[in-house]
């Protein structure tokens, strides 16, 4: 049994040896599933051997990464079938600290049963986490480099000066759109650069690199294998060996897009500058602290300074002291993000000391991180408008005063004239009573007529005056039919006298907004007119109707009388003291007053008329109920 003790001894020696290394060992009986591991194996994943007991086929499965298990099983399978001399697989096991540790797992069949089937497998686990991490990092960096090259459109190339052929990277190939495989001969590479300054400068640069060892960095144009023109940045670095240049390597970057964007940006900047400089309104860029950054020509004109002078002033210096605080307050609110923009009317101080009224509109520009960059201010000179406004206001005041005086005048005239005229007619009356024969005198009736005419004129004048003092009274809901009937009653004598046929089609229950006295007056005036201007050729008819037209109720008064030539008289139809008919007692003041009364109760009048056919007045009243 020397052999056995010898074997045991050897095994113990190996085990001792293994214990001193970083290698964990395992033994697996494929037939029985029995598994043995050593202390070191347990240590690799942060345990002691007793902690992992009992060790069985489940033990490994508890720790292995699920993604690696299949791979491991397949490798074992291949080895068991005899396809491989060793079993070998890189697998991850979960360490006690929760991290995955990489193991190089190796194993081999060490015994077979009587049938020749594999029995015992022995293997080892070596922690290769450090190496694996480095590998992954490297892969990651390579990917990153590829990606950044791709994103930046940077390709690499390497020119071998012995062969005069250049190796190029995938990105380089894409940039130069080169479809042939393999290295590119130098002359063909150079021909890719656009004939003219681009090509000659590249040739010079390469020659210089080879002869004097000087690097180059150029922006030039090339024409790709497919004939596309591109802008590239070409960088070349010579590599010297014992003073002679053996190789030149370098980069090529597609900057067509960058150039295009740059030129677009230049264009936009130019456009902005043009707009800014030539804008018809004053414009300025102002720093968040309130200093001018840029001012345009118009702003200088508005304030009377040259650009240099203005740039040295703070905005507060050119603002009326009373208006500074408001402006600053709004500016703060912009910076604090409380508002997007503001607009205010303010006073600026011109270089000559005069006040310039302006409308200021300000917004704030922030960078992509939200930090305020500058204010954009638009300043419009409204001094003239402001003056015009003041002039209008003063004109209005003058007009009001004149109107008041006129009204006062009308009051006095109407009152004093009335007294005198009253006396006239009274005296005439008396004369007639006391000296009846004087009435036979030819002058007497004329005198009487004149007096009556004067009296009527004064009474109209008075109506106008009293009208003005009756405004702003509250309106009532009035039943249109009641008032129409009343007006027809008042005019009954005239209606019978002239033989007028009245047709009243106003629906019952029409309510309108109005003042009773006005409505009476309005109706009587229209009806009187319709009777007065009847045609002698026809039986006079007056048709009354009403329709609703939100928010109005329209009263329609249609007659078949003389009619009015609206082309001739339309404009002055409602003027004071206009008459259109040869009629002796035609009184224009009626329509003038009526229109004013209708408007005072928020209505309006439309007229339609045809000479010798008739006239229709549409009187719009505010509707106060459904007809």
């Amino acid at each position, binding site marked *: 049994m020397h052999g056995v003790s010898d074997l045991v001894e050897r095994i113990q020696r190996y085990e001792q040896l293994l214990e001193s290394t970083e290698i964990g060992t395992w033994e697996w009986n494929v037939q029985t599933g029995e598994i043995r591991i050593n202390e070191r194996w347990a240590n690799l994943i942060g345990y002691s051997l007793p902690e992992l007991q009992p060790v069985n086929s489940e033990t490994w499965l508890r720790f292995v990464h699920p993604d690696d298990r299949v791979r491991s099983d397949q490798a074992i399978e291949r080895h068991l079938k005899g396809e491989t001399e060793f079993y070998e697989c890189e697998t991850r096991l979960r360490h006690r600290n929760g991290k995955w540790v990489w193991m190089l797992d190796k194993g081999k069949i060490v015994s077979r049963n009587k049938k020749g089937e594999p029995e015992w497998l022995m293997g080892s686990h070596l922690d290769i986490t450090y190496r694996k991490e480095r590998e992954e990092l490297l892969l990651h960096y390579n990917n990153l480099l590829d990606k950044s090259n791709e994103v930046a459109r940077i390709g690499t190339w390497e020119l071998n000066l012995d062969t005069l052929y250049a190796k190029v990277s995938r990105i380089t190939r894409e940039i130069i759109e080169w479809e042939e495989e393999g290295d590119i001969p130098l002359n063909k590479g150079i021909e890719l650069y656009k004939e003219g300054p681009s090509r000659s400068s590249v040739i010079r640069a390469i020659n210089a690199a080879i002869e004097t060892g000087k690097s180059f960095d150029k922006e030039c144009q090339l024409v790709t294998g497919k004939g596309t023109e591109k802008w590239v940045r070409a960088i070349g670095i010579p590599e010297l060996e014992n003073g002679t240049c053996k190789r030149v390597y370098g980069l090529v970057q597609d900057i067509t897009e960058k150039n295009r964007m740059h030129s677009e940006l230049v264009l936009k900047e130019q456009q902005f500058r043009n707009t800014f400089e030539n804008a018809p309104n004053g414009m300025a860029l102002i720093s968040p602290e309130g200093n001018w950054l840029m001012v345009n020509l118009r702003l200088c004109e508005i304030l009377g300074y040259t650009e240099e002078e203005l740039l040295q002033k703070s905005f507060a210096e050119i603002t009326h002291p009373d208006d500074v605080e408001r402006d600053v307050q709004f500016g703060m609110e912009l910076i604090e993000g409380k508002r997007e923009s503001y607009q205010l009317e303010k006073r600026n101080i011109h270089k000559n000391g005069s006040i310039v009224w302006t409308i200021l509109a300000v917004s704030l520009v922030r960078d992509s991180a939200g930090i305020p960059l500058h204010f954009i201010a638009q300043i419009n000179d409204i001094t003239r408008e402001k003056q015009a406004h003041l002039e209008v206001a003063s004109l209005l005041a003058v007009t009001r005063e004149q109107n008041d005086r006129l009204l006062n005048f009308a009051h006095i005239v109407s*009152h004093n004239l*009335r*007294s005198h*005229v*009253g*006396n*006239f*007619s*009274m*005296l005439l*009356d*008396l004369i007639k*009573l*006391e000296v009846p024969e004087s009435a036979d005198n030819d002058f007497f009736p004329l005198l009487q007529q004149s007096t009556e005419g004067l*009296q009527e004129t004064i009474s109209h004048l*008075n109506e106008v005056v*009293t009208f003005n003092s009756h405004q702003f009274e509250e309106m009532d809901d009035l039943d249109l039919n009641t008032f129409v009937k009343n007006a027809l009653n008042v005019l009954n004598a005239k209606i019978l006298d002239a033989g007028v046929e009245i047709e009243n089609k106003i629906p019952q229950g029409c309510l309108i907004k109005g003042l009773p006295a006005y409505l009476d007056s309005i109706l009587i005036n229209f009806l009187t007119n319709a009777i007065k201007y009847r045609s002698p050729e026809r039986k006079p008819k007056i048709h009354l109707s009403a329709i609703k037209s939100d928010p109005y109720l329209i009263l329609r008064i249609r007659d078949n009388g003389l009619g009015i030539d609206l082309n001739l008289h339309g404009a002055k139809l409602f003027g004071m003291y206009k008459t259109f008919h040869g009629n002796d007692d035609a009184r224009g003041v009626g329509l003038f007053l009526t229109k004013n009364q209708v408007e005072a109760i928020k209505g309006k009048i439309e007229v339609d008329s045809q000479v010798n056919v008739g006239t229709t007045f549409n009187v719009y009243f505010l509707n106060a109920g459904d007809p």
Partner: protein
Amino acid sequence: MQEIHKVCIIDDDPIFVFGLQRFLKIAHLGDEFIHYPNGKLALEGLRGYHEEHNSLPDLILVDLNMPVMDGWQFLEHFGRELNQEGQLVFIISSSIDMADIKRAKKFPFVKEFVYKPVTSEKLKQLVAKYSDPVV
């Protein structure tokens, strides 16, 4: 209805006063006339009249617009100092202002508001209303 003999006219317009007196005579609305050109003189005169006769004129006609003391002021004083039960006071004015008419209503002893011009027609109506039907 009492008979109207004595009439007091308070008005600053002599032509109107002249005409009115003639009308009133023709209409038999009074046969004795006293005239005052403003409210102040009228108040003083009427106080004297009252002391002397222990009565007032049967009818007092007062204008509104007058210098020194206008009709309204006169009516205030008259109402406080001199007015008696049954006294007839008319306003005769060229005012047709509604505000004046409303204001006149505050004086219950003002029985009529007569607009100028006064015509024989208007007077006939007043006569029918206030004078002795026999006359």
